[in-house]
């Protein structure tokens, strides 16, 4: 088990013939992801890395339906065209989208969210590096190449959810290096509106029998971490959470490169998040390099119980 994706998930790549699409399709297929279709309008009929390319999502759905259709679509599409591609995937019946591009206009994201809601679909991102279910499948660009992804991430019992793409890999690597294996690692995306924020990912980890501990990387801005704390208080999430909140050095009101890291009034501050999570029973790590140690202690205490 795992969350979001596993070795049996049937994946489509929208924008497969572009620079990033091509490179990341290679990463995904080489890692083991079952990429069953690609879509680039006007370029259907060819094959890319043995993946058949279609002109529309509807065509891709239709062509694959006898083998199980498409579960997930990963978008490598220029930001201004993401809305159209995402709506197409949602309306064609895809239930999980991974929206990699950065700089997707926020009103477009709201339209995508609206369509997702009415079609009971979900989306990771925008502005996400994606997710990896270790030794099973990569979605997006996490790990860079199949070889490094195999090298960096080892299987085990810990789920990682992070608001920073690079940090997702880092935490996963440092945990793996410390002998702590992983289920799924997930970058929720750096924008202020994202489809699957921390609380949604944490809920999925809660429901995943293989995940025993959740490591969470939070940041200032948004109320995602507060939302996780709420779930813990309501006992909707009972698995232990190890959390690190970045942004100690950030000045209030100054904007760093994540749209999400804006401090608005008293909401979304680092202190507030830490207080909420601590109050809800999360293990707060103050020093980033201590994440493996704390996680390992939590795992040990689980075993001793």
């Amino acid at each position, binding site marked *: 088990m795992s969350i979001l994706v596993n070795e049996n998930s049937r994946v489509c790549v929208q924008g497969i013939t572009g620079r990033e699409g091509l490179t990341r399709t290679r990463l995904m297929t080489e890692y083991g992801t079952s990429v069953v279709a690609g879509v680039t309008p006007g370029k259907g009929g060819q094959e890319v890395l043995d993946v058949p390319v279609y002109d529309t999502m509807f065509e891709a759905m239709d062509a694959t339906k006898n083998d199980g259709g498409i579960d997930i679509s990963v978008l490598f599409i220029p930001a201004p065209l993401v809305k159209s591609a995402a709506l197409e995937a949602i309306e064609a019946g895809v239930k999980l989208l991974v929206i990699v591009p950065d700089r997707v206009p926020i009103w477009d994201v709201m339209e995508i969210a609206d369509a997702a809601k009415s079609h009971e679909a979900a989306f990771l991102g925008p502005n996400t590096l994606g997710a990896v279910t270790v030794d099973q499948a990569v979605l997006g660009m996490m790990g860079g190449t199949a070889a490094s992804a195999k090298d960096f991430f080892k299987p085990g019992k810990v789920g990682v959810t992070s608001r920073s793409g690079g940090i997702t890999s880092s935490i996963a690597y440092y945990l793996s290096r410390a002998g702590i294996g992983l289920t799924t690692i997930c970058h929720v995306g750096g924008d202020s509106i994202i489809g699957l924020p921390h609380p949604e990912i944490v809920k999925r980890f809660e429901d995943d029998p293989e995940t025993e501990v959740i490591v969470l990387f939070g940041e200032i801005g948004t109320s995602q971490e507060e939302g996780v704390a709420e779930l813990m208080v309501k006992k909707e999430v009972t698995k232990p959470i190890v959390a690190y909140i970045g942004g100690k050095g950030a000045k209030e009101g100054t904007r760093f490169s*994540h749209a999400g890291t804006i401090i608005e009034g008293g909401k979304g501050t680092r202190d507030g998040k830490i207080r909420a999570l601590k109050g809800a029973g999360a293990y707060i790590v103050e020093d980033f390099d201590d994440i493996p140690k704390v996680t390992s202690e939590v795992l040990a205490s689980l075993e001793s119980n």
Partner: protein
Amino acid sequence: MARLFEYQGKEILSRAGFAIPEGKACTTPEEAESVASELGGEVVVKAQAWTTGRKAKGLLKFCKTPEAAKEAASELLGQVVTNFPVEIVLVESKLEIDRELFAAVIIDATAQQPMIVFSSLGGTGVEDIAKSHPEAISRKHIDIKVGLRDFEARELVRVTTLDRKFYNKAAAALVKLYKAARLSEARSIEINPLVITKDGKWVAADCHATVDDYSVFRHPELGIEIARELDHPITMLERIAYNVEKSDYRGTFYFFQMDQDIPENGKNTNGEDVIGFHGAGGGGSMMSMDGVGKHNFALANFCDTSGNPPASKVYRAAKIILAQPNIRGYFASGSGVASQEQFHSARGFVKAFREVGLQVPAVIRLGGNREEIAIEILRTYLADIGVPVEGYGKDDSAVFCADRLRKLVEEGPYNPKGPDPISNPDEPEDPYTFKTLTGSLTIDHAKCSDCESKPCVDSCHPNILEVKDGNVVLNISDEEAAKGRCTECLACEIACWTAANQAIKIDLPIDGLPEYLKEIKDSAPQEVS
């Protein structure tokens, strides 16, 4: 989330049919006088500044004559408000106010929907009203597919304390407000106060708006030059960086200055050493900043190159960072385990550091994909520049790297060699040139033809070079190279420099940077004669 001035917000409202006071934005007292005289009657002269409570701060001035307006404008223009000098005043006819209300459209990120907020009381802060008169306020999420319809707006105002005789006008106003937000793709538009005039008109007396940085490209009508919110007026260097960012879609580049006035000794008033900072990835950058903070460093700037940027972008970022005078070190660090292939960044650093002639020690943490190669590149090609440059990988933490920089800074002074670019230093005799996405590449075939090994061809990452008649040329069309097939990875230039005839020059101009550097140099304090 670029902030707009009042007058810009009002332009958005006006385009959607929302009534605004008659008036005009002015940049000189004379213009203010002439606008006041055109308007006739009493006017208000309003400093365009990002602050609240302007009236109490004396930033609004009511004027009965054009002369008074001129005087008010000259008092307001140039005043510094929260770091920004007032450059514009809005001159408007004074409104005859019957009552003041509040209305706003904001984006609720958690609900992933726009929300409209209305209050039948206005003028003061809406948080205060919410506390003292909760019955005056109502709010509603908006279905983005259909927008705000008049009947929904009527229902919204009905549950406030607004007199029902105003329902239809209120609904019409709110529908226009939402339309304004939708059309401009605003992050927020707030009208406070929304005024009912004595003759029954609904007029936006003030307006605070922020727009979505990611959508300004499709809103030329907003006239936004730089879609970014800073806590200070944009600097020349930031503008130079922004133009680099805008003209290259590959990966992210983000730069702003945090200390524009570094003393010559490189120590700020807290006694911290000020360094150039070059992060990679939002989270990784912030982690790294936390790391340097532990070692008594302060940052001259924040910079982020990430999302698989080409070497050329890292090169430009490094040059811009190094254009800041008096920094005591250079610290580059990302998340530690990047997905992108790190040797591209390494080559960017090499080219920049050699060209500029790095004066201060640098620690470059390039953890991630192919970090071994990246570190090797740094080691090999920067060993001789006279200042230490150390490369680290994913197994070395940001804190450890910051500690290394601390030590290197303290171990100085060094004897920097000065500029020693890796490009062909000579005027080419037989130039073969093609354009790349953001620059150009020239091979001097006079030198190239002598070379047996042609290491540039092997090093070329996208495989677009070949040998033809003893010379290296493109194996694709010039157009394809210019469109991005040449990824500006810089490998050929370095290879040619170190292992062949130094025949290649890759020119990656940075608009405005040479002029900026010259200006800094000229304005540097002269020795007292």
